[in-house]
C-alpha cells in the first residue's frame, strides 16, 4: 500500500459537508492539525490534498528556531509525547519556500503562527496581511514547548489581548488554539471570544512526562512535553463540551481522533469541524480515510447537513439538544 493514488471518495450523495466558522467557510469538516502534517508537500504521495477541509501547516514564528534537542518524541500508552520545540525556519522562509506549494493544493490553508508575546503575534500577522490565498490564521497560544514567562494561553485577559491585537492588523478569519493545561478552559475561551476570534481550536497537547527509572533520566530532551493521540481524546471531548457551554463561537475539535466514531463524537459534542493530528503519523492516509467514511456516518445519524448534527448531544437534565452554532 504505497504511493498508490488515494482512493476516490465514495458518492457523498446528498450530504452537505460545508462548514461555516465565523467568516471562514470550509468545504468539509476534516482538517489536518498543525505540526502533524509538515508543510503538506511531504504528503503528496499519500493524501489527495485538495480533498481536505483545511490544511494547518506547522506553526511558524517571526524568526527561525532550531527546536529542542532529541529525543523529541516518545510513544506512551496509546499516545505520543512530544517536545519538538517549534522547529521552523521563520516567517520569511515560510513565505518563500512553503506557502507557494500549500496554496497550490486547492484546500483552504490556515496558517498557524506563534510568538513569544503579544507584540510578536501582531508582528507576524501584520507580515502575513495582504498575502494572497491564505484562508485564515490559527494562533498557537498554547504551545507547551516554548516557555517565555507569561503564558498567553492560560490567562483569559492575555488571550483576549493577543486575539484583539491580531484582529487589529489582519482582515483574515482568526482561530485561537486553546490549551487544556488550565483550570478553566471556559474562561480562556471567553477571552478569545471577547478578543474577536472567529473560531476556537480545542485542544493542543496535554502536558506530560516520560522517565527511564533504570537510568534515572527523563526520556525527552526537553524533560516535559505535550501528549497527543487516543490517550487524550476524553480530555479533548471534555474541553469541547465545556467550551461549547461557555461560548457560541464555533469550535474545531482536535485530540486523539483516529476513527470515524471519534469524528462523530466530537461533532455531536459541539465541534463544527475536526483536525486530525497524530493519526497521520500512525497511518499517513488517515485524514482522507475519515473523510470517505463521513457521509455514511452522517446518514446513519439521519442528517443531510453536517451542521445539523453539530452539538446535538443530549445532556442529562436538558431534554432539548442545544442548537448548533449559527454562522455569523
Amino acid at each position, binding site marked *: 500500500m504505497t504511493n498508490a493514488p488515494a482512493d476516490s471518495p465514495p458518492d457523498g450523495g446528498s450530504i452537505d459537508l460545508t462548514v461555516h466558522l465565523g467568516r471562514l467557510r470550509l468545504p468539509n469538516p476534516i482538517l489536518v492539525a498543525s505540526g502533524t502534517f509538515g508543510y503538506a508537500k511531504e504528503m503528496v504521495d499519500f493524501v489527495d490534498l485538495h480533498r481536505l477541509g483545511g490544511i494547518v501547516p506547522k506553526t511558524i514564528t517571526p524568526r527561525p528556531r532550531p527546536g529542542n534537542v532529541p529525543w523529541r518524541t516518545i510513544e506512551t500508552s496509546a499516545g505520543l509525547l512530544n517536545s519538538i520545540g517549534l522547529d521552523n525556519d521563520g516567517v520569511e522562509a515560510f513565505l518563500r519556500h512553503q506557502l507557494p506549494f500549500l496554496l497550490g493544493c486547492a484546500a483552504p490553508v490556515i496558517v498557524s503562527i506563534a510568538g513569544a508575546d503579544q507584540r510578536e503575534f501582531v508582528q507576524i500577522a501584520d507580515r502575513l496581511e495582504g498575502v494572497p490565498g491564505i484562508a485564515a490564521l490559527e494562533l498557537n497560544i498554547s504551545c507547551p514547548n516554548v516557555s517565555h514567562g507569561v503564558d498567553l494561553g492560560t490567562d483569559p485577559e492575555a488571550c483576549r489581548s493577543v486575539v484583539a491585537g491580531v484582529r487589529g492588523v489582519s482582515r483574515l478569519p482568526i482561530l485561537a488554539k486553546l490549551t487544556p493545561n488550565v483550570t478553566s478552559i471556559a474562561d480562556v475561551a471567553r477571552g478569545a471570544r471577547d478578543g474577536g476570534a472567529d473560531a476556537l481550536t480545542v485542544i493542543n497537547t496535554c502536558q506530560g512526562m516520560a522517565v527511564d527509572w533504570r537510568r534515572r533520566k527523563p526520556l525527552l530532551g526537553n524533560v516535559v512535553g505535550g501528549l497527543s493521540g487516543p490517550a487524550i481524546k476524553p480530555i479533548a471531548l471534555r474541553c469541547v463540551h465545556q467550551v461549547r457551554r461557555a461560548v457560541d463561537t464555533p469550535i474545531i475539535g482536535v485530540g486523539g481522533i483516529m476513527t470515524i466514531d471519534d469524528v462523530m463524537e466530537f461533532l455531536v459534542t459541539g465541534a463544527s469541524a475536526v483536525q486530525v493530528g497524530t493519526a497521520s503519523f*500512525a497511518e499517513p492516509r488517515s485524514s482522507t480515510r475519515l473523510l470517505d467514511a463521513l457521509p455514511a456516518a452522517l446518514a446513519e445519524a439521519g442528517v443531510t447537513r453536517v451542521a445539523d448534527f453539530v452539538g446535538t448531544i443530549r445532556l442529562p437534565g436538558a431534554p432539548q439538544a442545544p442548537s448548533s452554532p449559527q454562522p455569523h
Partner: protein
Amino acid sequence: MSHRQTAANTYRLRVECPGIAAAAVAGQFAMLRIADRVDPLLGRPLAVYDTYRSAEDDAPQGEISERRFADFVYVVHGRFTTALKSLAPGERMTLWGPLGNGYREVPTTGHLLLVAGGIGQTALLTLGRDRAAAGEKVTFCWGASRGAAFGDIDDFRRAGLDVHLATLDGSSGKRGTVIDLLDSLFPRSGAAETDAPRHVACCGPDGMMAAVSRWSEGRGLGCHVSLEAPMACGIGICFTCVARVKDAEGGWDYKRTCIEGPVFAATSIDWS
C-alpha cells in the same frame, strides 16, 4: 507473511508489499505498523533487508521490478518488536515506503568496505550484493556483543562479500570491537595499497558509527553512515528524527533523517 528466528532475539519477517519490494534501493527503509492497534500506536522504521518474487523463494531472483515480497530482520527491543514477534496469524500490518535516500551517493571506487554493528547489517546486504555484482570488491565487517547475535551470515557470503566478524566476548570471529577488526584487517602502515578499501559504508549504533567515521577519516577514506534516529512518522511530517548536520558556513542545522537521510556523508554529521 512468514516469520522465523534467525539469531538470539532476532526474527525475520516476509511481507507481501509489491509497492515497496519493486522499488526499494539499497539502504532504504519502510515503516511497519500493526494495523488498527493503539498500543503500539505508531509505525517503526525497519530496513528493507532483501526482496523476492514469491513467498517461498529463498534467494532473490528476477528483475527488481518483479519483486512482490520484502524481508525485514529485527531485534526484539520494545513495544513494537515485542508485539510483532508474537503477531497472531491473520493480523494485518500496514506498511509504507520505500522511504529515505538510501546509499545512492556511495561512490564506486573498486573496493567498498561495509561495516555493521548490532542489527545494522540489515541496511547493507543489497548494497553489497549490487556492488559485488557490478565487479567491485566488497569487504563486510560485522561486530556484535556475542556470536549468537549473528544470523543468516550466509546471505552475505552468497552475495559475493568477503565476510569478517568480531565479538566483544570472542565467541565468534575476532575478539574485540569492529574497530579492532578493521585495524587488524587493514593495518595503517605497510598495507598493500592495492588491497585497501577506498570507501566505507556503515550502519549501527551511533557510538560505533562515530568511531568508524573517525577511523575512515584517519585513513583518508570517504564514509557514509545510515543513522538510526527514532522515528514517529518516517515521512517528514513530525520532526522527531532530527540529527545535527553541518552546513557550509561552519554551523549546523537539525535535518529530518527520514527524508533527508538516513544516509549521510560521515563528515557532515555533528557527532557531539
